[in-house]
């Protein structure tokens, strides 16, 4: 089902003494999510992404703005009337019920015309269990399962009532690293298989980029950028987005454009059509190429061998940061090197306006 958010705003009023200021958790968020899309809502903690999710599922009422499911305005409907499935960070499986009872629970709430017969209920439970591959765990209690299995049960419980929209709130953050990788593939698979429109919230950019059709990057309640993961990575709207996406983090420098050329410190990097002036310059770690004839001269602090790649930790006069990084092919920089020159890939280097942080086209 298509989902439209229109100028959605949520303000939490300040409490009298403790925090007198109102908190603008979500600010004029507008977003259209196509039927069957998997969208990752991404941002640092406190950026309003969970609030946005609560607004979509109806657990919170927006201060202003509308929410549409398909053509229907659901803004004033409670969560039970929206047909959403919600998966919580800590799964929220009822501990006193077996997996079967947990998955069955939402179906038992159905009333009137929606009410299912016993056989239909069992069939739906089986089907949901089959999709998330937990058929053999149906008689267990949540405490007798691993985190990954519990997460699957939570997804099955959210899917069993065939929701219009599946919402996942930090679904992977309680899992260990290996399970997290597995489970995110699993979520992607389940979403493809059921074709349910899904939104998932995360603070992990890698997680969001790897499985989302589109990502929405948020900061302080405001949507910064929205687009396909690669597109957002390659063409970040501003310095925040550039810094938030990518590991290792993008290197930032103080730079200036003079006479059509970009300078960082004394080093002339490349030609540009950007107007003269001071800029923040971002260079992705993979955008630096080992080139002894290159124009970008750096002091090497450490060479970290990672096998296939080598991570070069360096400093540069044009940046206050101590931990600048370049990712280069393994063995291309000797481990005792004290200085190294690089050339840069033009598509991995971004100019940002010093005031607004907005990206300025390089050429």
């Amino acid at each position: 089902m298509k989902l439209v958010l229109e100028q959605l705003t949520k303000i939490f009023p300040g409490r009298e003494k403790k925090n007198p200021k109102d908190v603008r958790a979500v600010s004029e968020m507008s977003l259209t999510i196509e039927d069957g899309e998997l969208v990752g809502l991404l941002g640092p903690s406190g950026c309003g992404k969970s609030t946005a999710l609560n607004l979509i599922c109806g657990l919170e009422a927006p201060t202003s703005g509308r929410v549409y499911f398909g053509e229907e305005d659901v803004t004033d409907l409670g969560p039970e009337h929206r047909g959403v499935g919600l998966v919580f960070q800590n799964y929220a499986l009822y501990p006193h019920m077996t997996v079967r009872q947990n998955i069955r629970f939402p179906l038992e709430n159905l009333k009137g015309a929606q009410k299912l017969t016993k056989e239909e209920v069992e069939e739906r439970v089986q089907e949901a269990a089959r999709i998330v591959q937990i058929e053999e765990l149906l008689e267990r209690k949540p405490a007798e399962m691993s985190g990954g299995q519990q997460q699957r049960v939570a997804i099955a419980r959210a899917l069993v009532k065939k929701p219009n929209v599946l919402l996942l709130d930090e679904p992977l953050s309680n899992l260990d690293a290996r399970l997290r990788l597995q489970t995110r593939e699993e979520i992607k698979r389940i979403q493809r298989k059921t074709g349910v429109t899904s939104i998932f919230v995360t603070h992990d950019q890698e997680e969001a980029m790897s499985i989302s059709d589109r990502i929405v990057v948020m900061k302080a309640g405001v949507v910064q950028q929205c687009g396909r993961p690669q597109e957002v990575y390659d063409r970040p709207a501003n310095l925040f987005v550039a810094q938030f996406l990518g590991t290792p983090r993008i290197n930032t420098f103080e730079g200036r454009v003079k006479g059509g050329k970009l300078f960082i410190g004394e080093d002339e990097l490349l030609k540009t059509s950007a107007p003269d002036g001071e800029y923040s310059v971002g260079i992705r770690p993979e955008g630096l190429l080992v080139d002894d004839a290159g124009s970008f001269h750096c002091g090497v602090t450490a060479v970290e061998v990672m096998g296939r790649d080598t991570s070069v930790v360096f400093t540069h006069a044009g940046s206050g940061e101590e931990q600048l990084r370049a990712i280069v092919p393994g063995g291309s920089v000797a481990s005792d090197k004290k200085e190294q020159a690089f050339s840069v890939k033009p598509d991995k280097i971004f100019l940002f306006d010093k005031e607004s942080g907005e990206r300025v086209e390089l050429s």
Partner: protein
Amino acid sequence: MKKKHPLLGWLYLLPALLFLAVFLLYPLIDVLVYSFEEGYNFASQSYRGTGLYNYAYVLRDPYFIRALKNTFIIVIITVPLSTGLALLISLGLSKIKFLRELYQTVFFLPYVTNTLAVGLVFMILFKKTEYTDGMVNLLIHAFGGSSVDFIDGPYWAKMFVMCFYTVWVVMPFKILILTSALAGVPEVYYKAARVDGTGSFRIFTRITLPLISPMIFYLVITGFIGAFKAYSDEVALFGTDLNAAGMNTIVGYVYDMLYGDSGGYPSYASAAALLLFAIVFTITMINLMVSKNKVSLH
């Protein structure tokens, strides 16, 4: 680690064991022994013979039968009633924000109030004197009823006051426990249930109740035990001569047999005490067996 002398552990336990032996184990065995000794006399330390005579006597004693009946009525009425009411009040408390702390304090007050002081308050509410019929009777008059003597009147009236009093006295602790049990149910379960369209009654019966059931059963079991041991509350309301008031309890009977006006019969007292123990033990076992099937410990 150096190998310790095997008796060293017992040495460490000795002080505690000594106290337990002197003040718990010895009296327990003593009571058991007394209960089988016929006509034991404190002064001469002598008895006529051994056997089940004391039990037979106690079980035929109309005062004991009355005490047994009173105790059972109090238990059966007050334990479910106080637990149920406490649950309702705790639910109410967990739903409101405004003045919640004030209410919590008010509900907890009886717990810290002296039993006899509470008894006095109940006297004012219920006792008929030459000057007044008591506040409750004034209310009954206002609704067009006629006076009832709750303290010295008919049995049902006395039992009503007794149960009222007991419920009121035991409720604060239950409210305290249940309020914290309710607060201990993670909010996220309610959110999940709401998203799934669960009605509030179903949320209560299917989620809240099972999750706090261990606490409820704790309260029921300790409530049963406490109610079976009722005595001081009865004294607070009806004075020390409970037999005359017809409101004696098993513990009261034990006390009377030992120290009362007609007392001096440790053998009968011991037999009654052991009968009480047998009852409480049986009921508790039944409770535990029921709870094993119903209560989900997680």
